[in-house]
């Protein structure tokens, strides 16, 4: 297993995540896409930590997980709140940012 394999896998994961955010209307799927991108980043961090033989990358990956957890909590809370008022979880129904 060379470095290239890890990098390609991370890139594939990131692109899938980004596409999920851009293409899917469902807010939950979009959030999952965000998680996927973050985890692609995490994979890179851990990979390079292993390659260089120190722990800094791994520590940073933990931080990312914590932040991701918090972000998901807030994101899901917003989704629930919107669902309660509008009865919909579609991102495109929420265009209030324009006005």
């Amino acid at each position, binding site marked *: 297993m060379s470095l290239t394999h890890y990098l390609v896998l991370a890139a594939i994961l990131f692109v899938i995540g980004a596409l999920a*955010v*851009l293409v899917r*209307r469902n807010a939950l799927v979009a959030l999952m896409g965000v998680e996927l991108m973050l985890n692609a980043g995490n994979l890179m961090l851990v990979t390079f930590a292993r390659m260089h033989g120190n722990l800094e990358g791994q520590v940073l990956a933990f931080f990312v997980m914590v932040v991701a957890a918090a972000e998901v909590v807030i994101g899901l809370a917003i989704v629930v709140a919107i669902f309660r008022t509008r009865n919909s979880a579609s991102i495109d129904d929420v265009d209030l*940012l324009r006005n």
Partner: protein
Amino acid sequence: MDTVNLAWLLVAIPLASATLLLLLGRASDRWGHWLGLLSSAVPAVLAIVILAEMLGVSDGERSVRVHMFDWITAGDFTVRAGLLVDPLSITFALLITVVGTLIHLYSVGYMAQDPDRRRFFAYLNLFVASMLVLVLGDSFALLFVGWEGVGLASYLLIGFWNQRSDYAVAAKKAFIMNRVGDMGMLVAMMAMFATFGSVDYETVFNAVPGTNEGVLTVIGLVLLLAACGKSAQVPLQAWLGDAMAGPTPVSALIHAATMVTAGVYLIVRSGAIFEAAPAAQLVVVIVGAVTLLFGAIVGTSKDDIKKALAASTMSQIGYMVLAAGLGPVGYAFAIFHLVTHGFFKAGLFLGAGSVMHAMNDDVNMRQFGALRTVMKVTWVTFALGWLAILGVPPFSGFWSKDLIIEAAFSGTGWQPWVFGGAALLGAGITALYMSRLYFMTFHGKARWHLPAQQGPGPERDPKEVGWTMTVPMIILAAGSVALGLVLYQGVPFLGFLESVTGTEAPDPVLPRWLLITLTMVLVVLGALIAFREFAVRDVPLEAPRGSALTRAARADLYGDTINETLVMRPGQVLTRTLVATDRGAVDGAVHGVARMTGALGQSLRKLQSGYARNYAATMVIGVIVVLVLVLATRV
């Protein structure tokens, strides 16, 4: 010298009265006119006391400066407000307060039927106060305060009956034409400040010797412009005829005796500047000569009794300006004529006012005639004023006008012949138009009771007016008779003025007796023509068409047309162009920038869709672009 320190009261009393009457409003309607009269009479008495005191000391000590307060203080620059009491200013102060008091008294009767009599007296007091500031101030700055004050009072009083729009327009016309002159005054003060560093009489006049003649000529010419505006001299003469819209006492006080003579005062006071600038002096004389003929010619054709008198005032002030432009030889004569003219012209105006009272405020002389039979006092007083303005010896006008004619004939080269000739000719025309006015009004056949002349108003029933109106007329008539003789022969009035004006005996190119004879011949000739035309023959009720000159004179020698063509229309074109430029260029630029910013915002606004996925896509694309750029530059 003690009373002189109270000179500020001369100004303060009428000013306080004016303020009080205006602030109290209707509450003072019942006694306001008596307060107004009193606050003109007290300064008159005070001025007489100051004069008596002045006569008690020697020539050199007669000029007193009374410091009042520091007006403007900024760093080491100070303008002091002080009064200058000297023979010249006290002469004016006396003329203003004495004639002013008589006219206040006359107004009590004249304005009796007017519901706004109190306001009228408040304005009259304001005028007296401003006029006294004008003549008593010891610097050009303070003179300017009075200058503007009398302009304001004149405006308010011309437009006193401003419910009639043509009267209001006349007031505005006077105000605006005066503004042109005031501009000259301001420029003169700025030039003085730039040259001498002060506008104080003493500093300025002491600094005149050794100053560049060109600068002095410019200052002299702008001062003359100021004088022309205030004194209705050509080319700023057109407002005076319309100013007759004001109540007749106003015409007598402001537009005959005092305010319009302020220009003469200014020229005489600034004598030091004019003497050092012969070119400016020559222009003064030319303006005076032109105006005296201009006014006289206009006067010959006017059927409106007040406008004829106004033209006559213009012409008589032309005499004074002419004399004032001659230098020390003429200053004292100008002031002398100013004083006698103040008396007889005020008397004539008051007479005209009482005639108007009897004629239901009609001013058309063609509808008067034979009033001597019904208005004895008015007739006699008017006749005495008429003889005085004609310059018949020994009435006042003779002494003063004769001296001016003599002075005009003094000098060398072509000037005495031209200016003297103008003055002489003017005297003849004066006799013609004043006699015309007098005969049309008081002699010939009565034309006021003809059925055709009875308008919708009450039937005309001319009666003599009440005592408040006859007493001033009698006193002024006495002045018209005797003042000239008394001031010339009785008391050395001209010598009294000398300490201010300097002196120089006139040296006419023709002998004095010949000049007097010539003047008298012309005067008698003028009067006889008028007698034949307007007393012996019937005066037509409708003005005949007349010659081209008559029609021109009737239209004020096209003064208004000239103003409109030369100033008003180009001015209108200029303002319209400026407005268009402002709208097109200035506003266009501002609005254009705003519209451009708005359009930009409108187009950028479309980027903001509000959809979270669009923003996310933008971010992704942005990141990719940045990455590509970074990687591309690193290769």
